């Protein structure tokens, strides 16, 4: 089984926009991958004129919100960095207990990379000084234009998601049985505190997406 990877278009967001943007994107992806019985829930963003769809599962919402909070803390410690959040779907395979212990292996079949560039604007400074180089009020206009640009990019990302889920369907495993909202097992990975560890995580994951017979 191959692992399909989708690199979403990079979004330039401000700090206060992260939460909404990530919620929107993560829920949208999961909605198209939670193929069990779902009563869709429409959610309107506050900062943007966008409506996305959730599966309406409280547990999932909590899990996603938690991850977003972790991410936000990470961003605060690493300002002005480009960052990636990875949402991966996997299948759980039990390895045969030959001479290894019964190890559970994850076989990743799909990975989504959400690329964010968090801008740290020096708004606070500019509004206070009156003779600084920066224009006092960068202008409502500029803010509005920027907001519109982010909104347009966000819509593009959502279209990108819809396109991807439709174009590649063959690799999706059979739907697991279960009551209520059923999800494929998935995990959300945010960059860890050290960049290099994050990189290692990615590499490890890539190795795991190989053949089931490959011993890692």
């Amino acid at each position, binding site marked *: 089984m191959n692992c399909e990877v989708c690199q979403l*278009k990079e979004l330039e967001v401000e700090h206060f926009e992260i939460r909404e943007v990530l919620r929107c994107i993560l829920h*949208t992806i999961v*909605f*198209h991958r939670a*193929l*069990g*019985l*779902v*009563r*869709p*829930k*429409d959610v309107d963003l506050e900062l943007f*004129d*966008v*409506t*996305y*769809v*959730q*599966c*309406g599962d*409280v547990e999932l919402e909590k899990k996603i919100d938690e991850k977003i909070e972790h991410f936000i803390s990470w961003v605060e410690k690493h300002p002005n960095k480009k960052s990636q959040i990875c949402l991966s779907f996997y299948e759980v395979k039990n390895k045969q207990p030959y001479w290894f212990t019964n190890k559970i292996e994850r076989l990743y079949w799909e990975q989504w990379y959400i690329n964010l560039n968090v801008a740290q604007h020096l708004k606070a400074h500019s509004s206070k000084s009156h003779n600084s180089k920066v224009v006092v009020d960068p202008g409502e206009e500029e803010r509005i234009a920027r907001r519109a640009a982010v909104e347009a990019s966000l*819509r*593009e990302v*959502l*279209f*990108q998601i*819809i*396109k991807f*889920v*439709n*174009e590649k*369907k063959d690799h*999706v495993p*059979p*739907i697991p*049985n*279960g009551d*209520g*909202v059923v999800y494929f097992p998935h995990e959300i990975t945010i960059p860890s505190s050290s960049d290099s560890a994050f990189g290692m995580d990615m590499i490890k994951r890539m190795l795991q997406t190989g053949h089931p017979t490959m011993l890692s």
Partner: protein
Amino acid sequence: MDLQSNLQPESGKLEQIVSQFLLKSLHIILDSRVPSLRPHDRSGDLSLGSQVRKSDKWFNLVLGDRPAALDNLNFWHRNVMDPMIIDVILVHQGSNSPSMAVGGSVETVIERWVVQYEYPRVVAAQPSESSAYYKKTYKKSIILLRALYSQMRLLPAYRIFRQLSTSSRTYNFDIIYKVSSFSDPFSRAEEGMMEEHSFPAVEAYPGRLCISVTYRTTLSDFNLEPSTSMPPKIITDYVGSPNTDPLRSLPSSGKGVSATSFTLRGVQAPAPVPSQRPHSWTSGFHRAAFSAQNQPFVGSPPAYYPSPMPYDYPSPPAYYPSSMPYDYPSPPTDIHGNRVQHYRAPTHQKAISHDDYQLSPPFSPSPSPSSPSYISNAYPMQTRVRSETAPKQKD
């Protein structure tokens, strides 16, 4: 080996999937565009209240009670091979009529959805394991319908739908719909203002399930605003009350039924002409204009749809609904009946700015021509929607 006999046990499954797919798509589209249909619980919580009807579990997407309009589908839909064309129509004031003038209302198709089971000209080899194959087809259809649901919230028409359905004030426009198995092609001018998007098809041997949409990229040219003043009560007789609201001046109907959204004609069913369009219906009204179109089918709605479905999924896996759970209702005598007019007490008027929905979709800008290889010559009665194949072209 006879293809037919091989397909036999599975053709029931296919027909069920296809017909349910059509129903579900219609449900999604109407639910997301037509405010007058009964709203349902959008909270998203499965555990909330009402049990989920079996019929609603198809494709694992619970939408709530189906609008009564969907029941019409069983009668007009002659066979599952017909395309189902859903027009989302904006009823608005004509552009040359200032708000106080006596103006007729104008209808513009702002979205045209085509949902269809496309039958190929050449049938490919049958998949070896048809049961597993149709499970995959079902799974892929689930994904496609999810995508349809999401996409409906991203297109320009969604915003005005939300205005109509959530706001407590009245507007000078309305959204209605028309479902048909054929339609007039768009004029060149109209086409110039629209974009097309096709979802990747789902293989459903021997054919495939397709959804596509042609939509207006911007709605800002329409003067869509809250109405100045509207009487809060329901008006059943509007002809003799010119002093209530100049906005509501309507064409004196020489036709049997007047077609605007401001009336409550639906309450007292006007002289129904149910047989005029056996293969389409529309919300709220009939107009003489509609009947003037060529209709390949005449007569009363043929009840071709078998009832009940003789096929059933044998011991379905957990994610299959297990049977055809709903009954086929008797033919509706009043095709009009579906729209419920609502008048709300006007509140403070607030300027609504309509942003320009210049959507330049990042998805493939050059839509594939309407799968010409899939237009089967075996169905000459089907009029294609796309203008390049339409028999008559406006200017």
